[in-house]
């Protein structure tokens, strides 16, 4: 009966439909041959308020996306510009010149030890401009990638981290200027330079912690979009970028170190200028504590809000 039915139908224009049933039954055979093996790890339960079991592993699994998003931002950044990537050199260089002239020459502030003022400024400018770019890019990153957030799932934390990574690439480029400056001034760094990666990591974590916190809030309350440029602008003068933190009165040193960038900038100078700059250890410890606190706060806030991003953005 069934076959006759199929033959009847086969001879009509509705062949498509019948082929369907044929192939589907074939497929069922296939399934018997190769039964699907489900990885227990791939079982996923979606429920309101449920935190993911494999959050950090998921993040690792998507590491490809970090690279790709960062690479996209880098390769798009200087398209259709005349001087291209040279912008990454010009901006910090000019800032250094201006700061050296204003703080060093006009205001006559002292450098660290015998290090040339320009070198001291640049050693502070390096971590600061990394922090500033990373913070402002990271805090706008989710909104800037709204089209992705609302259309595809991936661990959202990738977006701000990729933004910080892009800023880090800029940092590496400006580091080349620093090397050139050292050659120009014939300044020889000492063993402390080996500790530079540690301070670079602190700068990375500091900008990530605050950036992640702000970007999560920014999705819900766009006010933060206006707060960040302001904070970054003020921070340039509040942090010891154009001057040495040694000019801060001793009794205020600890309070001053609440700004996590103070410890990082001092650390950079200590590493790059060798013995010429002194490291204020209590300040560094405090800065580290503040940095860790912001990282904790940022991640907590981010993960709490992560699932509602698509609805709010």
């Amino acid at each position: 009966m069934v076959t006759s039915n199929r033959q009847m139908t086969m001879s009509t224009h509705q062949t498509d439909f019948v082929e369907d049933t044929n192939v589907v039954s074939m497929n069922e055979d296939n399934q018997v041959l190769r039964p699907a093996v489900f990885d227990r790890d791939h079982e996923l339960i979606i429920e309101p308020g449920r935190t993911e079991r494999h959050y950090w592993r998921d993040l690792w699994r998507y590491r490809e996306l970090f690279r790709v998003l960062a690479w996209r931002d880098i390769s798009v950044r200087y398209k259709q510009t005349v001087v291209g990537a040279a912008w990454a050199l010009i901006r910090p260089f000019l800032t250094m010149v201006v700061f050296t002239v204003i703080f060093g020459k006009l205001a006559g502030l002292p450098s660290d030890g015998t290090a040339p003022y320009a070198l001291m400024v640049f050693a502070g400018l390096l971590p600061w401009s990394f922090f500033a770019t990373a913070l402002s890019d990271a805090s706008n990153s989710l909104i800037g990638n709204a089209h992705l957030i609302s259309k595809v799932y991936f661990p959202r934390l990738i977006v701000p981290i990729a933004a910080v990574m892009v800023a880090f690439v800029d940092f590496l480029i400006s580091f080349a200027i620093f090397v050139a400056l050292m050659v120009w001034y014939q300044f020889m760094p000492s063993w402390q330079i080996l500790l530079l990666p540690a301070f670079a990591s602190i700068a990375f974590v500091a900008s990530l912690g605050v950036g992640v916190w702000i970007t999560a809030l920014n999705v819900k309350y766009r006010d933060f979009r206006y707060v960040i440029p302001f904070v970054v602008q003020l921070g340039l003068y509040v942090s010891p970028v154009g001057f040495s933190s040694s000019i801060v009165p001793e009794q205020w040193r600890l309070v001053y170190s609440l700004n996590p960038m103070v410890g990082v900038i001092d650390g950079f100078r200590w590493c790059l200028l060798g013995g010429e700059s002194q490291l204020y250890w209590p300040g560094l410890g405090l800065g580290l504590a503040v940095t860790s606190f912001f990282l904790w706060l940022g991640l907590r806030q981010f993960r709490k809000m992560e699932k509602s991003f698509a609805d709010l953005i």
Partner: protein
Amino acid sequence: MSDIVIAAENLSKSYLVGHQSAERESYTALRDVLAREARNFARKGLDFIRGRQIVQGDDVEEFWALRDVSFELKQGEVLGIIGRNGAGKSTLLKILSRITEPTRGRVTLRGRVASLLEVGTGFHPELTGRENVFLNGAILGMTHNEIARKFDEIVAFAEVEKFLDTPVKRYSSGMYVRLAFAVAAHLEPEILVVDEVLAVGDAEFQKKCLGKMNETSRHQGRTVVFVSHNTTAVQSLCGRSILLQKGQLTAIGSSRDVVARYLDLNARVSIANGDLRGLRRSGAGNVRFCRIAFFNRNGLKLSSPLTGEEFVILIEFEGSCSERQPARVGIAFFDAWETPLFNCGTEASYDQTLRIGAGDKMICRIPRLPLSAGRYKIGLFLERSGIIEDWLEDFVLLDVADGSFFGTPRNVPPGWEGKTVLVHHEWRRLDDPSTLAIARGFRL
């Protein structure tokens, strides 16, 4: 059984929606405006402190985009989701693909999920075709090696070999869509969630994509959830479908049945009262259809006519123009899936010049109704003096009851009910003596 890959239980999703207060216009005095702004500011500030969402507008309302939706899907199944705009289809897909979380309920997914809610998500206009393939692939969850392995296949599928190193902003929209879809078509997750992405691209390419999707779901045992307004695509791709209406699941079953249910939403009138005034229509409207009624040969009013019996349709016209003008009236018959079956038009069968004005009535008589038992749809059309006066976009439902067309107990072979027109015909054996009279002169 553990071959259930997707299990959704009581999924619900609500959003907060703000409305502008209706009395907005009455705020004229500056004092009132200030007072209102101050109130708004206070409310937003309070929301901020409590960590709530800021909603623009004076009244905030909770809107349920999805309500208590439950279904299960086995491995290798292709499920269609159909419904009008705003029925909650996209919300459901967003929950399944983990973009947003449900307000209530839960989903259990077994296997890696990839979602394709939009063609070319993350494509960057400044990057070249080649770069975008890698970018898009990574966003959709493919690894670099996986993309590199399939790269040639993707490019061949998209037919953009020549333009690989051109920024996609210089692409024609067709090329853009082809490339974007090609990447997506080469995804290999265990569960694939696809939104209305085939609405773009030319017909040829759409066919190719459907073919590709079909192939992967069948031969690799992939489970697919598919949303489309293209009911033909849903029927050919999906074994089962669900129908969503205002966030609720109102039908689940074989795609043919569910699609028919969905299409019925358009056929607003069943013949019970025969009033046509509330239907959606287009045309000049000086004269319009206002009533339809069905009768049998004895003049008895019917709700469902019988196959093979005499069937009379009465239609009545109303409108502002009672002057009779040369006209054309048509009644078109469709099956439940809106495939045209046949048309009864006055230009073919009315032997004089037909003139119609408001207040006229006409009957159309079909001596033997050539439809087997099942549900059909009727469309009505009126043209006067070369202008379309009334064209119903909604259909009138016609349920035909089982009668006999050929004088035998069966009208159609099994599986053909409700899908075909019956045509008078006869079968004979060639060795029957009476056949010779017919076959005389045939070169056998």
